[in-house]
C-alpha cells in the first residue's frame, strides 16, 4: 500500500521532471539544471560511501570529465554528444588506474588522497597551457550543444541524472548492495563470507567516477567553455556532500531530497547574499553530523519501518 503510494509519487514526479520545459521559463530551467547536476553528484558520492569510503575527490573526476569532453571536441574533433560519453569513459579509466593504488587505503587516508588527487588534476590541466589552454581555459568555437536551447539542455542534464539514479538503484537492488554493505560493516567478516573486497571497491569507484565524468561532460557542453577554476571548483565536492548528508546517506532517495531542499534554499540565498551564501552548507554539514546522523530520513520515517530501532 505504502510502497504503491510512493511509487505513484515517484512516477508523477518523473513525469513532471520530464515535462518541465513545456511550461517553465528559462530561469527555473536553469535552476533545475543546477539542482539536478548536484543531485546526480550527490548520488554518486553516496554510492561509494555505501562501501564506507568517503571521497573528497568528486570535483577532481568531474573536472577530468569536463576537460576530456571539451578537449575531445576541440583537439580531436569529436561530435558533442560523443564527447560526453568519452568523458565518462575517460574518467572511468582514470579511476580504474588510480583505484589500484588508492583503494588499498582506508578511512582518512583514502579521503585525503582523493582530495590531493583532485588538486593534482587541476594543476596538471592548469599547467599544460598548449593543450588545455592553461588558467584561462578553453572555449568551444561551435558553442553550446543544441544551440543553447534551454529545454534541450535541461533534458540533457536530466538524462545525466537518470543515469546516476539508475546506477544507484542497480547498486541497491543487486549483489553490489550486499558486497558494499558487508565491506562497510566489517571487512574481516566480509572476507570470511567470500567477498573480494578490492574487486567490489574498484567496481564502485570506477562506476561512480565514470558518472561524475559524464556529468562533467554534460556540464561543459552546456556552458561551452572550461577553466580549471570553474570545473575543479570545490563546490562540486562540497555541495553534493552536504546534500547527501542532509537527505540521509546510504540510499538513493536521501540525496534526491537533500538536493532539492538545499538546492532551492541556496538559490534563494544566492540572491539575498552574493558573498558567502555557502556558509549554509558548512553549517548544515556540522548540524547533520552532530545532531541527525541519518539526515532528514530520520524525521520522515514511519514508525513501523523495519530499520527503526526505538519504536515498536
Amino acid at each position, binding site marked *: 500500500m505504502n510502497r504503491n503510494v510512493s511509487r505513484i509519487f515517484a512516477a508523477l514526479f518523473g513525469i513532471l521532471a520530464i515535462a518541465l520545459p513545456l511550461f517553465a521559463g528559462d530561469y527555473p530551467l536553469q535552476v533545475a539544471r543546477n539542482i539536478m547536476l548536484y543531485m546526480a553528484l550527490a548520488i554518486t558520492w553516496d554510492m561509494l560511501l555505501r562501501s564506507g569510503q568517503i571521497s573528497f575527490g568528486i570535483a577532481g573526476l568531474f573536472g577530468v570529465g569536463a576537460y576530456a569532453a571539451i578537449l575531445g571536441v576541440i583537439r580531436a574533433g569529436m561530435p558533442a554528444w560523443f564527447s560526453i560519453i568519452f568523458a565518462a569513459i575517460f574518467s572511468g579509466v582514470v579511476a580504474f588506474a588510480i583505484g589500484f593504488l588508492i583503494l588499498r587505503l582506508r578511512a582518512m587516508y583514502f579521503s585525503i588522497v582523493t582530495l590531493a588527487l583532485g588538486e593534482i588534476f587541476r594543476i596538471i590541466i592548469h599547467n599544460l597551457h598548449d593543450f588545455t589552454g592553461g588558467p584561462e581555459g578553453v572555449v568551444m568555437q561551435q558553442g553550446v550543444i543544441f544551440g543553447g536551447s534551454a529545454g534541450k539542455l535541461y533534458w540533457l542534464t536530466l538524462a545525466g541524472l537518470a543515469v546516476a539514479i539508475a546506477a544507484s538503484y542497480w547498486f541497491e537492488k543487486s549483489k553490489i548492495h550486499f558486497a558494499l554493505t*558487508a565491506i562497510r*560493516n566489517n571487512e574481516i567478516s*566480509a572476507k570470511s*563470507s567470500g567477498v*573480494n573486497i578490492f574487486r567490489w571497491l574498484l567496481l564502485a569507484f570506477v562506476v561512480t567516477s565514470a558518472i561524475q565524468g559524464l556529468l562533467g561532460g554534460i556540464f561543459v557542453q552546456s556552458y561551452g567553455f572550461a577553466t580549471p577554476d570553474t570545473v575543479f571548483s570545490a563546490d562540486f565536492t562540497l555541495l553534493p556532500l552536504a546534500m547527501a548528508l542532509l537527505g540521509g546517506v546510504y540510499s538513493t532517495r536521501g540525496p534526491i531530497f537533500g538536493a532539492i531542499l538545499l538546492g532551492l534554499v541556496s538559490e534563494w540565498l544566492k540572491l539575498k547574499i552574493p558573498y558567502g551564501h555557502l556558509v549554509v552548507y558548512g553549517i548544515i554539514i556540522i548540524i547533520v553530523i552532530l545532531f541527525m546522523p541519518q539526515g532528514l530520513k530520520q524525521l520522515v520515517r514511519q514508525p513501523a519501518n*523495519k530499520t527503526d530501532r526505538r519504536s515498536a
Partner: protein
Amino acid sequence: MSKLKTENLTRRFLGLVAVNNVSFSMEEGEILGIIGPNGAGKTTFINLISGIIMPSEGLIEYKGQDITYIPAHERARMGIARTYQLIHPLENLTLIENVMVGSIFAKGNGLKEARRRAEALCQELGLTGLDRDTSRLTILEIKKMEIARALANEPEVLFLDEVMAGLNADETKDIIAMVQKIAQERHLAVGVVEHVMGVIRELTHRVIVLEAGELIAEGKYEDVSKNPRVIEAYLGGGAA
C-alpha cells in the same frame, strides 16, 4: 587424507610469537576442541587458517592443496568458514540478508537462489522473523545467525570462535545439539574454541591444547585434562 592440516605454522607479531610451530590435522566429521588459557593464540590460529592474517612460517593444506598464502575470500569459496568471537551483524541488513551474504559471494548464487537457501538454513536452525533488523535479535538468535552465515558458504571445514559465550545453560545445550547435528549431517570438520570445559567435554571428539602459541597436548578431552602440562598451563595462566 586429512581435510585440513598445518605444518610448523608460526606467526610472529613484532618479535612476539603468537602461534609457534603448530602442526595439527582435522578429519571429516570430526569435532575438534581448541583450548588453552587466555592469550594462548587460539584466535590467531583460526585467523591464520581462515586467511585473515598470513603466517610467518609454515604450511596450511586443505584437502591436500597448499593454501598457505591464498587470500581469505578465496578460502571461504573453497569451503573454509568461521564465526567470530566478537560478533558483528551487518547493520542495515535484515537477518535473512545477513545469511545470504555467504551464499552470494562464497557460492556465487544469484539473489533469489541465495535467499531460498538462506531461508532453508534459517528454518533448519530454528530462526524465524527473517525480515527483522539485526538490532532486534536476541543473543541466541544472533549466535544462530552467525552460524547460519558461516554455513551459507556451504563449507567443509567450520570454525566456531567462542560461539557459546554469553548464552545461558539451556541455550548452550541447544547450540551443542545443533552443532553436533550439523557436523554429522554435512560431514563437516568442525573446530571449536571454547572456554567452558563442560561444552568441550560434551561436544568434541578430540582436543588440542595451545599455550603461549605452542601445541602442548592433543587427544581425547578426558585424557588431556589429566595431562600435568595442561593443568600447569591453566593454573599458571590463572584462567580457565
